[in-house]
């Protein structure tokens, strides 16, 4: 379910598969009960 192309402002986000910390798979849209600030960061241990 990975997205085929890069999208920008005004575009509709296609289904994007991500993983919860426990390893279960969810779709990004499951977090969109409200406007979402999606921050791609680097996790350090």
């Amino acid at each position, binding site marked *: 379910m990975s997205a085929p192309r890069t999208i920008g402002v005004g575009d509709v986000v296609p289904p*994007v598969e991500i*993983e919860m910390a426990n390893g279960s798979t969810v779709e*990004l849209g499951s977090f969109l009960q409200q406007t979402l*600030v999606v921050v791609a960061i680097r996790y350090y241990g």
Partner: protein
Amino acid sequence: MQLHEARSSIQALGADVLAVGTAAGWQAAALMDGSGGRVAMGFPCVVDPDHNVYRTFGFGRVRWWQWLTPALWRNYLRAFGRGSRQGKVTGDVGQLPGVVIVGRDRRVQYAFHARTVGDYPPISRLLDALQGTR
């Protein structure tokens, strides 16, 4: 850390935060619950091992010469000054960060593509963007 501090302001504008990283699930869990002496972020932290989010929003990659640029090390020093400390590195170290604001209608309302490691927009810019979408 700054997002954690700004979360209430973000929520006051009808939004919330979702952090995405390429690293291990245990690191995302540690960030959320604040284990290992960290500050608990409070917002969801998820993992993107296949880079789906990064590809979708077009977040770039670190070019080899960027590791030599002052801007990258300035960002490291700035994070260090805020109390961030380098831990075990996992995931994709060559992946650049980025920020997008997505509305409930799944439409992208704001996008920021980092130009180097540690390159994030000021929180004030995110809050302005959120206010502009209300």
